[in-house]
């Protein structure tokens, strides 16, 4: 357990030692602020629903940049050999790395909490719905990161990893847009696979077990594949 925290802390520090963390933080938060202003100015409603939708759309593009280096860098610099010859199990390595990125992502979301404070000050937002919206946003990000972690374990090249993540995330995000082109038998499947089907419920303040199961199962599946792929010596 201590080792999971040690690896997570090392990951988190690594983010802040490279400029990418600051660039991502500044750009993301600036864009969020801009959209927060625009959405509130347009709708004049005390809800974060629409800003959540903007945020999840942006995460599709930001998360691959955050996760591409996690394993790919370790492989290309040879530190993977160090990690894997210490008495640390692969499960611990995967969880530690995942936790590190998840904490960094939570920080990004944490900054957006000021939006809630603003609308709480000026209006009467639906607290439960806002909370569920945050939960949905966080779960979705957690899922994106797990997918990014998985693709990072496939290659020693960070660009390859980022591209694989983009392909998967863009497919999941825009899946429901393809529905009209597929046969009716496939329709429920695409509907289920599409991430928007599930996140929309939460951002609208509806809590359904099936949505939680969707996110958690994809997270666990991705972590499981990550563990297998770092174990598989061919991919090192």
């Amino acid at each position, binding site marked *: 357990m*201590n*080792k999971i925290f*040690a*690896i997570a802390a*090392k990951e988190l*520090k*690594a983010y802040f*030692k*490279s400029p990418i963390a600051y660039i991502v933080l500044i750009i993301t938060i600036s864009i969020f602020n801009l959209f927060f202003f625009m959405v509130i100015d347009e709708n004049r409603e005390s809800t974060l629903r629409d800003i959540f939708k903007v945020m999840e759309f942006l995460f599709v593009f930001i998360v691959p940049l955050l996760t591409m280096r996690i394993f790919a860098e370790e492989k290309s*610099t*040879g*530190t*993977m*050999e*160090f*990690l*894997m*010859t*210490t*008495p*640390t*199990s692969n499960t611990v390595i995967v969880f530690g790395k995942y936790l590190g990125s998840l904490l960094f992502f939570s920080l990004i979301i944490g900054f957006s909490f000021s939006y809630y404070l603003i609308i709480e000050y000026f209006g009467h937002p639906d607290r439960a719905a806002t909370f569920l919206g945050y939960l949905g946003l966080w779960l979705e990000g957690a899922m994106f990161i797990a997918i990014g972690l998985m693709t990072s374990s496939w290659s020693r090249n960070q660009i390859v990893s980022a591209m694989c993540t983009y392909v998967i995330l863009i497919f999941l995000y825009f899946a429901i847009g393809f529905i009209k082109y597929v046969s009716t038998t496939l329709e429920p499947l695409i509907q289920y696979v599409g991430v928007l089907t599930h996140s929309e419920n939460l951002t609208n303040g509806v809590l359904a077990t099936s949505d939680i199961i969707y996110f958690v199962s994809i997270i666990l599946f991705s972590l499981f594949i990550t563990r297998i792929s770092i174990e598989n*010596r061919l991919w090192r």
Partner: protein
Amino acid sequence: MIIVESLVKNFGSFPALRNVSFEIKKGEIVGFLGQNGAGKTTLMRILTSYLLPSSGKVTVGGYDVVRNSLALRQKIGYLPETPPLYLDMTTRDYLRFAAQLKNIPAARERLQIDKVLEECDLKDVANKTIGILSKGFKQRIGIAQAIINDPEVLILDEPTNGLDPIQILQVRKLIKNLEHKQTVILSTHILSEIQQIAQRVLIIKAGSVVADDLLPNLLKKENQTSLENVFLKLTS
């Protein structure tokens, strides 16, 4: 301490190690000699459980590389060919991370770190970022990482690679000092180095062990005056 029985390792259809068997007793210092691509690094990676054998049985300290790899890794210290360093960390942070992964109790962490900083003559650069240090320092940080948990078996892949003559002497002295306490396996291209450090030599050619004997016996058996002649005779 180390028992290798009919070890075979194939990379696809390429045989990297063919039917290698040997035994290394506690406290021995063994040098692996061989041309580039002979299989020295592959053999070391299997001994550290980084790579799995295709067939055959390998045990270190009674632990099987396949079935008890975590317990085995607790007993070894490993310096890969390129020192596995996180360039954005400071020397001390990196050694602390290594100590955490190698299950050193928190109470002894500082003590062990200070000890290896002293032994590897790294005190002056303890708080410097690894990325800005010279090759010699990096190599010694790699060695410090390998000995931080007082391993019973020390596996060093070309430990003096890239060092200047004075540093080479220091590293040799370091290894000599470990004699009788630890079992040491090292590989090198420098034949005189083997003569100075190792008691026993294992010459590998195209994945097979072509000679395995104590140094004086080997010279007598091959009827040669220097290791260089033996090496040239056996590998060409």
